[in-house]
């Protein structure tokens, strides 16, 4: 026993608290501490993953209150996988942002505290077994995300952040409403307990609660038309934060939504609804991405599209579909982070982040450009890179469910995606460089971070079996609702007796 899941929340919160204090002692500690914390958590997560694979779900009871009364953390194959992924992404983003832009000490303090908070919140969303607790974590994540979006003073970041905030407030309103509804009906906030008793709810209320959940969490999961904030926030936030959004925050949002739909409520028609809404999201986002003239906005729209695809895959609902969705989440986290990280060096000194400012940078930033191109090729699903396998699993899942239309739509949209990504890559490699652009060479730590992601893409691409085992057990654990309930509630029983 190396540790318990509660450390995932306790340690980073503590560290976030300690950062400014330590900063007075040794300034560099502000930058180093988050890395150490994340590294430790990564170690912990990997260990726990091994443990989970070995002996089943770990349920951690907090403060001695057993489920269904107390708050509990669930480290199942699914949540464990996502936790590991988020911590990994967080760690890589830390490596990257260790020296990203020469921000002064005060700014660094803010940045790293907020980043840690955001990661903690996201991990909490995934780990927690309590619906209100989840709400709290969502709010923690959101507030740190608002602040991080508005991190740069010079740009229109406040505008983006404010939009995010308005919609985020609506999100929290809907979540609270849903929680109120559930609580008024069932008198419990524990997810396993809710799932157990969901059939006792009046159908009308159940659906109402579900709708509020979908709306509230859909805002975090970027489904259309709830994603108005997304492109702005992605584009205006610092580069690593954009990566964190697409690699961490959105994943948590999607997880929450999927947990609600798959575990809490069993309403027929939800899956079809997911497919439809995911499809619309995908199509609109990719259509919007084609004509973007700003790099980060393009990446943001692409991110929305990918999340739509994830939701479609979840909507397929079979084990294969869930597997595919999780695979895509994993790949998307890695690839899109790589794109954001390398992309932000491509438009480093630019204020407007126009795509045409990246023209011909390949000569000046060979590795960054190469990694960006690798990411672009991977994300459109070209074999033998990572993206292909997730796309293949989605398609085969859809085919096994006889959803030919879905396949056709996904592939048509993929063509659109391919066009705009390759346009950018072509520009980077083959257009003459704009005179006024001053390329910035990436720092060594940024290179390391990006290279890790690039290697991950290659590893998953050439040897997908390295992750499919985890993904399969994760997808099974999501679908085995009864086991989840039993795992969580049995802990309570043990505790009481």
């Amino acid at each position, binding site marked *: 026993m190396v540790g318990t899941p509660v450390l995932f929340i306790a340690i980073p919160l503590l560290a976030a608290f300690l950062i400014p204090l330590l900063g007075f002692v040794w300034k560099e500690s502000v930058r180093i501490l988050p890395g150490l914390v994340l590294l430790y958590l990564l170690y912990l997560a990997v260990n726990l993953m091994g443990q989970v694979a070995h002996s089943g779900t770990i349920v951690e009871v907090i403060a001695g209150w057993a489920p269904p009364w107390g708050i509990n953390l669930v480290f199942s194959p699914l949540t464990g996988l996502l936790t590991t992924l988020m911590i990994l992404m967080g760690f890589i983003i830390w490596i990257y942002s260790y020296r990203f832009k020469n921000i002064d000490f005060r700014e660094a303090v803010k940045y790293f505290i907020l980043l840690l908070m955001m990661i903690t919140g996201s991990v909490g969303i995934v780990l927690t077994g309590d619906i209100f607790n989840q709400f709290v974590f969502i709010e923690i994540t959101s507030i740190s995300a608002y602040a991080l979006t508005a991190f740069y003073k010079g740009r229109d970041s406040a*505008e983006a952040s404010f939009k995010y905030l308005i919609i985020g407030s609506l999100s929290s309103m809907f979540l609270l409403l849903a929680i109120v509804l559930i609580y008024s009906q069932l008198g419990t906030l524990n997810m396993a307990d809710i799932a157990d008793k969901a059939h006792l709810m009046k159908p009308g209320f159940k659906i109402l609660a579900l709708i509020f959940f979908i709306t509230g969490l859909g805002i975090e999961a970027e489904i259309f038309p709830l994603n108005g904030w997304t492109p702005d926030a992605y584009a205006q936030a610092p580069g690593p934060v954009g990566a964190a959004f697409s690699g961490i925050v959105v994943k948590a949002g999607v997880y929450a939504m999927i947990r609600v739909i798959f575990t809490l409520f069993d309403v027929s028609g939800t899956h079809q609804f997911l497919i439809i809404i995911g499809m619309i999201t995908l199509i*609109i986002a990719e259509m919007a991405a*084609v*004509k973007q003239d700003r790099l980060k906005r393009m990446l943001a729209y692409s991110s929305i599209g990918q999340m739509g695809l994830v939701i479609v895959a979840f909507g397929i609902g079979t084990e294969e579909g869930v597997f595919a969705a999780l695979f895509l989440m994993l790949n998307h986290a890695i690839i899109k982070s790589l794109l954001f990280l390398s992309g932000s060096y491509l438009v480093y000194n630019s204020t407007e982040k126009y795509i045409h400012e990246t023209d011909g940078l390949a000569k000046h930033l060979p590795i960054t450009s190469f990694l960006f191109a690798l990411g672009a090729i991977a994300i459109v699903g070209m*074999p033998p890179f990572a993206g292909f396998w997730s796309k*293949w699993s989605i398609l085969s899942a859809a*085919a096994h469910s006889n959803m*030919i239309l879905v396949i056709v739509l996904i592939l048509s949209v993929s063509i659109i995606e391919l066009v705009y990504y390759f346009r950018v890559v072509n520009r980077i490699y*083959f257009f003459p460089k704009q005179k006024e652009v001053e390329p910035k060479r990436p720092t060594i730590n940024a290179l390391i971070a990006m290279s890790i992601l690039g290697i991950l893409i290659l590893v998953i691409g050439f*040897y997908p079996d390295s992750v499919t085992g985890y993904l399969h057990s994760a997808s099974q654990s999501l679908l085995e609702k009864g086991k989840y309930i039993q795992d969580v509630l049995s802990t309570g029983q043990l505790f009481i007796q």
Partner: protein
Amino acid sequence: MNMIYIVFIVLLGGALLTFFANRISGLLRDTFFLLTILATTVLFFTKIHIGDTVSFTLAGLNLKWGLDAFGWYFSLIVLGLGTMAAFYALSYMKGKDRLGYFYFSFLISILSMLGILMSHDLVSFFIFWEVMTWSSYLIVIYSGRNVQKNGINYILLSALGAYAMLTAIVMVYANIHTLSISEMINTYPQFSHVQQVWLPVLFLMAFSVKAAMMPLHVWAPGAYSDAPMAYTSVFSGALSKMGIYGMVIVFVSMISYLPDDTLFKETFAWLGAITAILGTLWAIAQDDARKLLAYSSIAQLGYIITGVAVGTDLAMLSALFLAALHALFKGTLFMAVGAIERQTGTVKFTEVTGLIRKMPWTFIASLLAIIALAGIPPLGGFVGKWMLYESLINSNHYILVIAIFFASTAAFLYCYKFLFGFFLGQEEKEWENVKEAPALMVLPMLILAAGTLVLGTFPGILLKPADAAMQTLGYASTEGHLWSMSILFNEWGDQVLLRPLVYAIAGTFLFFLIILTVKGWKNTRYVSTKDISSSGEVPLEYENLTFSVNFYQPFLRAVGPVMKKRMIYYYREFGSGMEALFDYSRRIYNGNGQTYAIYVMIFLVIILLFKNSIFG
């Protein structure tokens, strides 16, 4: 360790080594490149035997690689042309930058083609197909010319085809829960009728894109002409044959089982013929040699597609023969253009003329290749053309044979234009100092051209493996009654005995050539091309008397109505229409945070209103 793995590892490792060796020294890079391709060729032809298979599991999918006679036939094209092009490339690419990148992509595309030919399951087929797409794409954009136009066209249409194929693959996978190609072929007759129709259509879409069939050919002229010529010879000669390879499988193993297969076959045969005609006509209109050859490739592939689609013994044989032959002569021609481009710096017929005395070896190679391309008897091209015509006539495709014949007659026009434009005509002072290309470039050309020469008399050399390949597909052996070493038969029993005919041609030619040379040998002397009868005028040095602008204007005027608009025009219109639509659709995100909030409420309201129909 199985030899099949080793070949792939050698290629992949060689590609990576070449890529990284580029940083160290050019010589090392060239050595690695050449060694890799040579080692692959040697290993492939000595160590891998027909019937070898290997299987493994990846991501829960059973993948199987192996080699059959059919794949071997196409491997012959790929590796043969690939090796020649590799030698050529060493000299052609000398001094250009980003060579590591080029050689890497070159080797990877060879690898992907071998992979396609050796894939026995659909997923690895698709993977290699896509690898082929992007590796060739990397080379198409290598030169940096028109990347945004030609590169995107290429990748877009390739993706269209590849995704159509992917759809088909997942359909098959969902249906029979296995990815084996042979399994798919075996169970195909039991599929539902809808699937039986759609599977071949989707597969053929992918293959038609690579085989540059109308109306999916629009990428080809740009892509062929923008890639470095060292690669374009492989691109047009071997890579496009992958489309043919797939098509043959689909036509033989799938479409034949359809109850309404004739409709399919006729449609594709006609599409092939139309491709041939339009490709030829557009080739005639080109002033850029690369474009001319690109359109010519499209046209040639059109013949092959027709042969495949008609699918009788003789037609299939002719298609396979032409596929290999096309690799020979089109490889030569692209290399010749490359040589000219390298030596003179231009590939426009309107600019460069009269190279025959400066680049005689290139001219000889081009001449042989052009004769083969035109299908004129003593060379291999005739054999393929003959078999194609006879098969069409034998299988009652009367109008089709006229269409094909029209295309190949019109092909003489661009054939002549190619030779005249570059090698004949006035010798201009501007090109006075042009030298023959280096031996490393000339030799591959000559070797390939000599191949067409040999095949003209002894087509059996190539027909034998083609016959073996066809037996793999389920055809009966046709040796002895449709072909033998140097005799061709049609299905009515008429025959062409090539050897006496070729000897007669050669004999007559030599006889009259000698007469012409000997007669007045002492008095006849060479004069420059400025010494022509031009109404008593003496053309000055700067006066260019070469006729090369609007070369075939009268002909193009005659066929004008067909050529008003190119297919790509419609694609462009469609594309810009779509982009306008996209542009319009993204205005949903109007930038006002409040509107976004209102969207959220609208979303909620809509779901609430329709909750009963959504969550039934």
